[in-house]
C-alpha cells in the first residue's frame, strides 16, 4: 500500500500503537509494521514530525530515558490522546462499515 493511503490516518495509528505501552520512534514503527503485516510503506522520517505535532497538541507526552546506554525519547499517550483515539476509532468503524456496505 502506498504512503498516500495513510494520509490523515497516521496520527490515529500512532495513538493506537501507544495505547497499551509507551515506546520510542523506532519501536512505534516496528509495531506499525507488525500489526499491518508490513502493508504501510511510509518514509520513516515522517513519523517524527507527526510525533512532535501530537505532543504539541497534548495527545502524547514524551521524556528522555536511557536504554542500553542510549538516550532515547519515549512517547506515552495522554488522557486527551486516549479520548481522541476512541473518537477516531468510532469514526473509522462507521466509515469502514459504510464503504463495505457499498462495495458489497
Amino acid at each position: 500500500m502506498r504512503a498516500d493511503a495513510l494520509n490523515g490516518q497516521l496520527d490515529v495509528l500512532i495513538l493506537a500503537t501507544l495505547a497499551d505501552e509507551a515506546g520510542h520512534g523506532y519501536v512505534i514503527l516496528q509495531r506499525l509494521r507488525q500489526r499491518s503485516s508490513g502493508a504501510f510503506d511510509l518514509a520513516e522520517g515522517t513519523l517524527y514530525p507527526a510525533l512532535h505535532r501530537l505532543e504539541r497538541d497534548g495527545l502524547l507526552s514524551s521524556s528522555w530515558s536511557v536504554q542500553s546506554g542510549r538516550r532515547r525519547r519515549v512517547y506515552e499517550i495522554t488522557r486527551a490522546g486516549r479520548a481522541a483515539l476512541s473518537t477516531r476509532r468510532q469514526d473509522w468503524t462507521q466509515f469502514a462499515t459504510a464503504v463495505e456496505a457499498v462495495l458489497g
Partner: protein
Amino acid sequence: MSWLDRLARELAARGLTGGDRRRIILELDDHIACEPGVEARLGDPVELAATFADELATSTARRSAYVVFAALVTAAVALIVPQLAPGTASNIFPGFTSGLSLWLFFPALLGMYVAPQVALVAGTLAAWRAVRHRRDLVRPAAELALVRRRAWIALGAGLATVAGIELYVLDFVAVLPAWWLVLTGGLGAVAACALLFAGKELASAGELRSGTTGPAGDVFDDLPIIHYSWLRRHPWALGALGSMLVGLAMTLFMAHAERSVTEGLQRGVFEALAAAVGFVLLGRKIGVPGSPRLAIQSGAGLARIPAERLAGDEDRSRVEQVLREGFGQGRLTLEQLTARLEVAHGARTIGELRQTLKGLPPDER
C-alpha cells in the same frame, strides 16, 4: 556527508536551532542506531526538515497570537478595572492641571485612549486569523508573517497602554487615594510582565522559516461579511467608514455619560481622527489592502529594486494585493488574475514579480 548531517544542516537553514533541533537529531540518531542502513527508508532530509519547520512555524505563530491576545486581556483589565472600582467614578479624574506635569499627562492620555484601540484591532485580527485556521497543519509563510506582524503591533500598543497607565499613576501620585494608586500600578505591572512574556514567545516564533508559498490574505478574508461587499473594491472606504463608526460610537457614549453633546462631539472627533491616523500608519501592516501606505511603499519599492534581487514573501503578498486590486477595478479578468497570482506565488526574483504587474497603472505598483 551523512544523512544525519544533511538533516542537521537543513534544520538550521530553516531556523530550527537549539533544543528543538538537538532533540530531532538525537531521536533520528537513535532510530538509525536501532537498525544500521535504515537511512534509505527515512526519506529525503530536505523534505523532512521542511515538514518539521513548516509545521512548527505554523503552530508557534498561532500559539504566539493566542499568548499575545491573552496578555492583552490582562492589559485591558489593568485599564478598565481601576475605572470601575467602587467610589472612583468621580474622583479618579482630578483634572489635568492638578497632576505633577503635563509631560506626564498627555503621553498618559495617548497611552490610555489611543493605544488600546490599536491593540484591540491588531490583536483581535491576529488571534482571529489563528483561530480560523486552527486545524491546518501548515499555513503559507506570508500568512504566518502577517499574523506575527499583527501580533507585534498589538503587543507594542499593549505596552504603550500599560506605560500610559503607569504615567497616569505617577502624574497623580500626590492627588489620588493610595489604594487606587497601588491597585492600578500593580495591575499595570502584571500586564507588563504578561506582555513581555508574550514578546518572548513571539520573537522565538519569528525565527522559524516556513517554506510554504501562498497568499497572506487580508482583512477582507478575515471578515467574511465585508468580503464580497462594495468595500472590497474600495478598500480605503473601509478605513474611513471604520473611523467614522468609532467616532460616532464614542460621541454617543460620551454625550450620554457626560450629559453634554459638545463633550461627546469633542471625544468623538478625536477618536475618529485617531482611528483614521492608525489606519493610515498601520493599515497595510495588519493586512488592510489599499490603505495609503500600500500605494506609496509598493509603488516606489518594486520599481527601484534590481530585477535579479530575490523576492521575499512580503514582496509576493504585496504584489498579490496589487493584482487583486487590479481585478477589483475591472482591469484584470478572473483568468488573468488567477494566472498572474500563480506566477507571483512561484516568483523567485523581483523581476519575475514585476512581470506579473504588466499593464497595470504604474502609480499602483
